[in-house]
């Protein structure tokens, strides 16, 4: 009796792709702890979903964007006003980037206050911190590509801040600008960073981040009501994947409504000769900007570098805090202060 066609097709495929489906299932259906049923713990996947949106919408934008000082603004005008659904894709890209930063921060807050960075997950925390910086980098470079007045002057201020970094500052600023001042080279570099270097780095880091999670498993918490449950875990697929899918669709819905009510705008064309009255970076840099305004440039930059270094090595700082101040919840207090400071500076800058 001849074999059914489907079965022979499966055999054909199996011969060429020798992967055991059962093994694959154990990979995708790996049980995850019950606490992941809480929405709060599904935040890590959200930036990843948004990163996916960014790649898709970004590719669409690349079809039309021209990375030259004379062409950039016109091409964005074209995308916004002429290209079919251009405004929608551009607005999605913009709002998705902002939401990505919000969710990265929320995920980080959750990880921090639940102490999930502690032994043995210190390295993954550090990978995450680098991802945060890359995300900021993506935000900054993306904003700079618009080449309207605010975008241009944000680059100007950004590179000047970089320049004031001790020792490496002038070199770094020259590297970003591609010369002693902002020129066509600068835009090309920002463009390459935005579409190749940062996304590739982030993609690699996402993989590394997930590998770490899979190797170490997610941190296990047990909420009081979960203690009574017999099953301590639930399957990643379909249960948790459905949660992520739900979040993805919800985000798409929210983003679309944001584009409808607040489509991405476009300011005056960049004019190197006219400094706008109010130069402001994107909101997520407000705290940094305010801090620089409150201090002198030197101290301001050094302070921020120190802050970044401390965040990066936090699991080890935390180790010493626990050792020196046991049972005081010092990390929580410091964390609370740190996040409050960020919020206060951000709101303060927004109001001025």
């Amino acid at each position, binding site marked *: 009796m001849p074999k059914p066609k489907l079965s022979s097709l499966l055999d054909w495929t199996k011969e060429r792709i020798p992967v055991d489906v059962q093994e694959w299932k154990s990979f995708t259906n790996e049980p995850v702890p019950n606490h992941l*049923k809480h929405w709060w713990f599904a935040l890590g996947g959200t930036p990843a979903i948004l990163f996916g949106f960014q790649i898709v919408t970004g590719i669409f934008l690349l079809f039309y964007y021209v990375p030259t000082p*004379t062409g950039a603004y016109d091409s964005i005008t074209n995308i*916004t*006003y*002429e290209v*079919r*659904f251009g*405004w*929608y894709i551009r607005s999605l890209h913009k709002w998705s980037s902002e939401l990505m930063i919000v969710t990265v921060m929320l995920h980080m807050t959750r990880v921090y206050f639940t102490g999930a960075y502690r032994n043995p997950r210190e390295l993954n925390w550090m990978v995450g911190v680098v991802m945060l910086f890359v995300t900021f980098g993506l935000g900054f470079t993306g904003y700079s590509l618009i080449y309207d007045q605010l975008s241009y002057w944000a680059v100007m201020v950004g590179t000047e801040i970089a320049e004031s970094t001790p020792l490496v500052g002038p070199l770094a600023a020259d590297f970003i600008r591609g010369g002693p001042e902002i020129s066509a080279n600068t835009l090309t570099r920002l463009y390459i960073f935005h579409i190749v270097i940062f996304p590739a780095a982030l993609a690699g880091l996402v993989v590394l981040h997930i590998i770490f999670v899979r190797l170490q498993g997610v941190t296990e918490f047990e909420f009081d009501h979960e203690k009574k449950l017999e099953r301590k875990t639930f399957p990643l697929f*379909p*249960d948790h994947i*459905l*949660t992520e*899918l*739900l979040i993805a*669709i*919800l985000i*798409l*819905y929210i983003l*679309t*409504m944001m*584009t*409808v009510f607040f489509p991405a705008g476009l300011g*005056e*064309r960049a*004019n190197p*000769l*006219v400094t706008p009255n109010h130069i402001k970076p994107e909101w997520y840099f407000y705290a940094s900007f305010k801090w620089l305004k409150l201090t002198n440039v030197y101290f301001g930059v050094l302070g921020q570098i120190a802050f970044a270094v401390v965040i990066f090595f936090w699991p080890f700082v935390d180790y010493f805090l626990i050792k020196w101040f046991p049972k005081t919840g010092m990390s929580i207090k410091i964390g609370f202060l740190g996040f409050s400071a960020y919020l206060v500076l951000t709101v303060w800058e927004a109001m001025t």
Partner: protein
Amino acid sequence: MSLNIKRIIIAVIGLFFLGSLLIVGAIENNKRTLGKKAAIKVSATSKNCVDCHTVKNPSLVEQWRDSKHAIRGVACMDCHEAQKTDVDAWEHEGHSIAVIVSPKDCSKCHARENQEFQESHHADAGKILGSLDNVLAEVVEGNTGRLGLDGNSPAAVNGCWQCHGSVVKIGKDGRPTPATWPNTGIGRINPDGSKGSCTACHSRHTFSPVVARQPDSCGKCHLGPDHPQKEIYEESKHGIAFKAFKEYMKLDVQPWRVGIEYTAAPTCATCHMSATQEQNVTHDVGRRISWNLRPPISEKIDAKAIKAGKLVESWEQRRKNMKNVCSKCHSEKYVDGFYVQFDSAINLYNEKYGMPSTKIIKMMKAGGVLTATAFDEELEWTYFYLWHHEGRRARHGAAMMAPDYTQWHGFFEVAERFYIHFVPQVKEACEKAIHESGEKMVAAKEVLKELDTILNKEEHKWFLGKMSGDEKASRNAAAEEFKKRYAQN
């Protein structure tokens, strides 16, 4: 939460998402219906015009769509709507409209610009219709009778009026007559009584400042043998820089201040109209001009007003205004030096050619040596060429730094016209008159005497072979020096 509930929620949110995509589609669709620009909103009254004219005159509507007017919601009826009592009102698709949008109409929103324009020489460009130039077009070149167009000379209708402006007449159907419209002459006399035409520079229907700031816009009228400002500008360093760096001129930005928004080059608008850090943009093009270089004898720009007892901005102040613009690219001494050179050229033209030739012609006309009819004698044409063509070229060339126009198209031709044509023709006409008896003879003798006085002046003596010994010696020395320097034999 059970899997099923999760699935239901996903389905519900998915539906919401699809719904939101419908809104996105509707917005996109709405954009396409109204035009390409997302921000364009057409009022209900103008929508019919847009719909119909998009089919009939697609480029006209598309140009308007590209305009700031469209983005700001200024549409057809905002400019073309007329009161039923207006002379040029006519019924069109249930609306009372006017074809011509006059400066008075534009002043509803652009009051300051209109006010400045009305005070400018541009607004009075229609005055040409009563001038000597018009005799040329109406009588000498053209004909208002058998070959005329509604009693007008086609030469004037198609030529003079298209720059200077027509007196727009309205036919029985409420539409402008074909003899007087189309017309975008800058001094047009409109049916509502207002002077001028904003579209002379701000071409409809984009009304883009890019067009108005182009030297080509001014060049529609300011070119040719009698006032080649456009060509002069192109020959000057200013024009060369503009051509080379046009892409850096940011012709579309607002405000547009030399030294702030752009630094690459000046256009006509830069020097004569546009804003600097200290001055506002002005639509009175004479605000920075110190000389009137048009008449047979140049005079300071305020001279006529002073004679008429009118108070106007002094020429000194106007020169200061211009110097302010110059200072954005040049040092004070450089600008002062330029004005010393420029003034000396005007003085030379006036004293050596303008005043003597004008005096002679006036004496000949008054004494009957020349007939009262304009342009019926060769000498009148010679004199006209002297001041109206070549004399202006020399003066305008010096005013805007075009050496070739100043010299070869200018002073060289003025001199040739004066010595080789004007002087012999004056002598010939006078000698002819001397053979006739009466007043004419006396006048002719007076003219010859005056000509002799003129030619015996230091600047003309060379023509009589009376160059002074000192001057001859200094010229020879200069020639020797020149030969030595360039090793010529």
